[in-house]
């Protein structure tokens, strides 16, 4: 064959190859270009799986670094009823392992209308691991985070709880949900034919929730809860609330409500027990409110602490007659004595001197009728009548703390302002979130330092020789005020049997470190704030002063303090 023929054959072969490659190329272009998207989707559905990586929920710490709420791994057990071969045996095994009702499990496993049913969400990992080892057909497991409250009933109304989907449902868990929850991530797992992961493509990394550091001190909180529990038991009361506040910073060291509940078993607890009454509930404060009336009269320079008044046992205001708690004759009392002896007639006399308009302004100035802005959800502003709604008798009951409703936190922060030389500081529960620096809480001056110091002196007299003697703490000067208020009757007027007894105090009075409020709802046997709430205050204060910073030095003159010379 000639070279020409050979070349022709080679060219023919070349043409065949070019044609074959061309067709292959066109097919490849068709498959990978035009049909790429649809085939890609089809392929990915067969060998890849999109997985949502849950973000770990942030931990809630108290100010000492103790965990109050923490995320814990749990195993969720699910089943595909269509894959279950022996529902009767399996349901018995599952029920035994997970401590469930076998009949309910059996019903779920026999319902073949579904391809997926939860057997138990967030089960105990140890129980689930034992069950997994049995290798029951149709049963699946996956890890989920479960919220756990390692201190059980400690500050449960305050911290609240997160639900089964790990989202906050109440308390700080709810209000800080955005910061605590973080952001879930996403990844695509590529699997081989046997289902083993051969590649992981992370499309969005998860961002764990931020940790939250509270101002709360678990030791102070635990003691307050114990004292409240004992007080409720002693007086057969409906409930009791206590707040321990640092007056200089507005930091809440304890916020307790009795009876409490274990946050780990919140679904079984009545909703009424889950409320943080210190912030969400209002009460008529009674005599503790006289502080506002006296502060207004002193600030307006209408009276001084030594100004005296001749006060009868009762006073007529519009259509009402108001008298003091204890029967007495007409007496001359100073402003200081009006407060220490908790004279209703005296407080109303001061309010009349102050005038309705200025009293309304002072009530507002102390923050009553407004939200304190505490970082807790569902705060109540209290109930304060606007001036145009006042009746003729309002000046006869509002100055003594009736016909007005306040929250315990409003009352505690008003007394904290007096303890803090007249400067009100916004009460707060959250010290900082994550690594961010703590912010300085809002503050404003309510009364002058002079008025504040005069009020403190008067409040010391309340404990030294007035209605609050049972609030005394050995070695320390205590300033405070008792309050006893009848509760409004559903049929109108005020109840003769249902009262709120309260005490708000400052310790040590010379260098205030703590403001403590105790209010007891519907005590039986005794109703007076000085008898029911003041001893509880003293118990809490005694413990806290010994605990705080290794012990707060006493400031009472009766305390023996030894002097010594330091030797290096």
């Amino acid at each position: 064959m000639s070279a020409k023929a050979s070349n022709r054959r080679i060219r023919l072969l070349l043409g065949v190859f070019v044609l074959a490659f061309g067709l292959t190329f066109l097919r490849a272009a068709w498959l990978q270009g035009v049909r790429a998207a649809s085939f890609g989707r089809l392929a990915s559905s067969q060998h890849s799986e999109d997985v949502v990586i849950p973000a770990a929920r942030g931990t809630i710490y108290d100010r000492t670094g103790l965990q109050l709420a923490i995320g814990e791994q749990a195993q969720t057990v699910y089943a595909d009823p269509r894959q279950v071969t022996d529902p009767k045996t399996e349901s018995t095994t599952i029920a035994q392992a997970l401590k469930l009702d076998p009949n309910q499990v059996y019903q779920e496993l026999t319902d073949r209308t579904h391809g997926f049913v939860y057997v138990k969400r967030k089960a105990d990992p140890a129980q689930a691991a034992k069950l997994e080892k049995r290798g029951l057909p149709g049963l699946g497991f996956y890890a989920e985070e479960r919220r756990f409250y390692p201190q059980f009933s400690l500050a449960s109304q305050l911290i609240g709880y997160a639900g089964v989907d790990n989202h906050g449902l109440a308390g700080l868990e709810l209000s800080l949900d955005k910061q605590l929850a973080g952001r879930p991530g996403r990844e695509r797992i590529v699997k081989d034919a046997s289902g083993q992961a051969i590649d992981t493509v992370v499309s969005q990394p998860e961002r764990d929730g931020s940790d939250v550091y509270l101002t709360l001190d678990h030791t102070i909180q635990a003691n307050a809860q114990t004292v409240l529990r004992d007080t409720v038991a002693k007086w057969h009361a409906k409930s009791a609330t206590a707040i321990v506040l640092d007056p200089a910073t507005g930091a809440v060291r304890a916020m307790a409500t009795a009876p409490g509940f274990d946050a780990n078993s919140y679904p079984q607890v009545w909703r009424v027990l889950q409320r943080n009454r210190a912030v969400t509930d209002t009460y008529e404060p009674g005599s503790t409110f006289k502080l506002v009336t006296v502060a207004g009269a002193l600030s307006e320079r209408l009276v001084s602490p030594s100004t005296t008044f001749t006060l009868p046992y009762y006073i007529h205001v519009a259509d009402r007659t108001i008298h003091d708690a204890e029967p007495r004759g007409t007496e001359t009392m100073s402003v200081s004595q009006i407060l220490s002896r908790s004279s209703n007639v005296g407080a109303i006399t001061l309010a009349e001197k102050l005038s309705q308009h200025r009293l309304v302004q002072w009530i507002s100035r102390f923050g009553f009728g407004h939200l304190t802005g505490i970082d807790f959800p569902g705060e109540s502003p209290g109930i304060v009548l606007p001036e145009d709604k006042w009746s003729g008798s309002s000046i006869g009951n509002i100055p003594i703390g009736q016909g007005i409703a306040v929250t315990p936190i409003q009352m505690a922060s008003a007394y904290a302002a007096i303890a803090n030389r007249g400067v009100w500081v916004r009460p707060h529960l959250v010290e900082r979130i994550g690594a961010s620096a703590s912010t300085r809480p809002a503050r404003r001056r309510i009364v002058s330092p002079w008025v504040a110091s005069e009020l403190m002196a008067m409040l010391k007299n309340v404990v030294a020789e007035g209605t609050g003697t049972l609030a005394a703490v050995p070695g320390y000067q205590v300033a405070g005020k008792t309050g006893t208020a009848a509760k409004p009757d559903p049929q109108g007027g005020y109840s003769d049997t249902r009262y709120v007894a309260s005490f708000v105090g400052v310790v040590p009075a010379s260098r205030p470190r703590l403001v403590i409020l105790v209010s007891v709802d519907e005590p039986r046997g005794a109703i007076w704030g000085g008898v029911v709430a003041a001893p509880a205050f003293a118990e809490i204060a005694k413990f806290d002063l010994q605990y705080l910073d290794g012990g707060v030095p006493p400031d009472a003159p009766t305390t023996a303090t030894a002097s010594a010379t330091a030797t290096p």
Partner: protein
Amino acid sequence: MASWSDAAPSLPSPQPRSRPRPRPRPKPAPRRRPQARRGVAGGVVWIAIVAVLLAGVVALNVAVLRLNVQLDKLDTQRAHLRAEKQALASQLAMTAASPRIQLQAQKQFGLVPANPAETTYVRLRPRSR
């Protein structure tokens, strides 16, 4: 293409061997044979290079796959360790609470909290010179 045309004369004749050979033609220039050998050798080298590269790519993919499998196992291990850490943190939080420690100390060792009324504070002053 040029190389094919150049190589064409060197192809063996398809005619039967029985036919008397014509007068031997003068051999092509001896310098062309080494060129062809070099071409073949070059092809072998290329094949070897491509084979090595392909083997490398396959080996690399296998290594990546092994690493991914290992990574998946490590991920699982990390998840287990994280779960264990969380469980331990829960236990620690439960046991580290000071009221619980105080209660245990009272029960086991008879701890009696100091009475604040009986507590004496010593005020230290710097030594006078």
